């Protein structure tokens, strides 16, 4: 990253160094003023009093609210991950199938689940399960959240599988076919194992999305962290501190996941299990517009990530 940043400017001389130092100082001052303004505003509304923050030091808030909330969030996310990987694997292989009657339905499903907002799918699943008594009523909200997350992220994983396989050099499948493997065997024993390695970092990053989106469960009354934050707020009259604490929990977990994703990516690159290397971030971002965009943006020399 540092190499691509320094590309825009020379090593600063004495005058620039002074200028940069002044600008740095100014930005620190501006930031301090903004923070002071926010704190002052919070203080003015009595949000910084010990009474509002003390509850987070008591065991009760943690055992009764935050930890159950966290468990709710993680349960929904974990179930969705497993189901999404399964669904995504099937749809992804389906999209790569040589049989048109498998390929087309898979394509349509993936495009559909990607285009429809997760919230709509959650609401629909929730109502559907409630209306037709498909799920015990105490599991209704969880089932709704999991369904929405699974369908959307399954489509994303399917897209990742496809870009993973496409990122492999053509020689891989040509060689496999040349030694007499069938299409299915080529996919199973040559392409997929390498594709999985290539897309592993992207899948770990997708966990962040799943974890964040599980907060949508708030809307269908699923008992997760955000809902618990609101309950703490109502109970102790400290809504803003509760939201800040919950946001901090999300940020810490998601940052850890991002760090893991980076580590996995570095490892994949170093060990080179996939002939095409790990998927580059822009290969993933542009998965929706697939080949067109990756052709449009040839890897420049500054293309390190």
């Amino acid at each position, binding site marked *: 990253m540092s190499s*691509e*940043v320094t*590309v*825009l*400017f*020379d090593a*600063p001389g004495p005058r*620039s160094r002074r200028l*940069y130092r002044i*600008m*740095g100082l100014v*930005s620190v001052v501006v930031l301090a003023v903004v923070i002071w303004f926010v704190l002052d*505003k*919070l203080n003015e*509304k009595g*949000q910084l009093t010990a009474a509002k923050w003390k509850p987070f030091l008591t065991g009760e808030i943690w055992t009764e609210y935050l930890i159950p909330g966290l468990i709710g969030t993680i349960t929904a996310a974990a179930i969705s991950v497993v189901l999404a990987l399964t669904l995504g694997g099937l749809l992804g292989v389906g999209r790569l199938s040589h049989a048109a009657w498998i390929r087309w339905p898979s394509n349509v499903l993936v495009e*559909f689940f990607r*285009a*429809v*907002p*997760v*919230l*709509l799918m959650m*609401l*629909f699943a929730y*109502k559907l399960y409630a*209306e037709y008594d498909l799920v015990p009523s105490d599991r209704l909200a969880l089932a709704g959240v999991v369904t929405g997350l699974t369908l959307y992220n399954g489509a994303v994983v399917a897209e990742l599988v496809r870009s993973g396989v496409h990122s492999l050099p053509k020689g891989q499948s040509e060689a496999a076919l040349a030694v007499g493997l069938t299409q299915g065997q080529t996919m199973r024993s040559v392409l997929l194992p390498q594709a999985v390695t290539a897309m592993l970092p992207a899948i770990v990053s997708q966990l962040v999305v799943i974890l*964040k989106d*599980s*907060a949508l469960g*708030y*809307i269908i009354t699923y008992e997760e962290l*955000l809902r618990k*934050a*609101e309950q703490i*707020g109502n109970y102790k009259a400290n*809504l*803003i501190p509760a*939201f800040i604490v*919950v*946001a901090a929990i*999300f*940020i810490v977990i*998601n*940052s850890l996941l991002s760090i893991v994703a980076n580590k996995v990516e570095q490892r994949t690159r170093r060990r080179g299990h996939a002939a095409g290397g790990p998927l580059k971030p*822009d290969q993933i*971002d*542009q998965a*929706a*517009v697939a080949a*067109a*965009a990756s052709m*449009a*943006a*040839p890897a*420049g*020399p*500054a*293309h390190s*990530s």
Partner: protein
Amino acid sequence: MDQIPDLLRDYDFFAAFRTTIYLTLLSAVGALIIGTTVAIMRVSPVATLRTIGAAYVTLVRNTPLTLLIVFCNLGLFIQLGVVLADKNSNTFITTNNFRLAVLGLSIYTASFVAEALRSGVNTVPVGQAEAARAIGLPFVKTLTYIVLPQAFRGAIAPLGNVLIALTKNSTVASVIGVSEASLLMKEMMDERPDVLFVIFGMFAVGFVILTLPTGMLFTALSKRLVVKR
């Protein structure tokens, strides 16, 4: 299927999608402004600015959008009394919630815009910035005349994806009562549970119609505007 005319008569389907579109477009403008600023900070030669930019992206990207939007309403408005509309107007609550939702969506989406632009900056070959410096352009001119124009063109495809995600994310605004598509869908499903599938189909198709052309437009644009090298 034959219930669709009835449903369209009983509920203002198109008004809901109009709100979704307004919400998306206004937030897109807000996100583009904040996001560009953050992206510039992240590539600037001043270390403090880079840190602030990186901190913004890390903090906002890892926070659930639902939390941000609920906070805009319960925290900013109800607890702190931040008001974005005229209190005396009789549509005060509606307008205020709409603007708070735009604020939340802009702040959230800005972090993704900043990342998209940074990936756009990465598509600009080193030689471009080196040549600019060689003819004596200072940082700001290198950025505004040489790098950013190419970066925007290189970032069109990822920016298109951000816009599509924003369109879908705008549904979260229903959590603070903005009467956009998902709120109407919920209302319709509450009142007409007999036609759940038809209602879901209508809204799903509505979103496909919104996002599919956006995707195609941005793919076409990115192909047309890409800097040929």
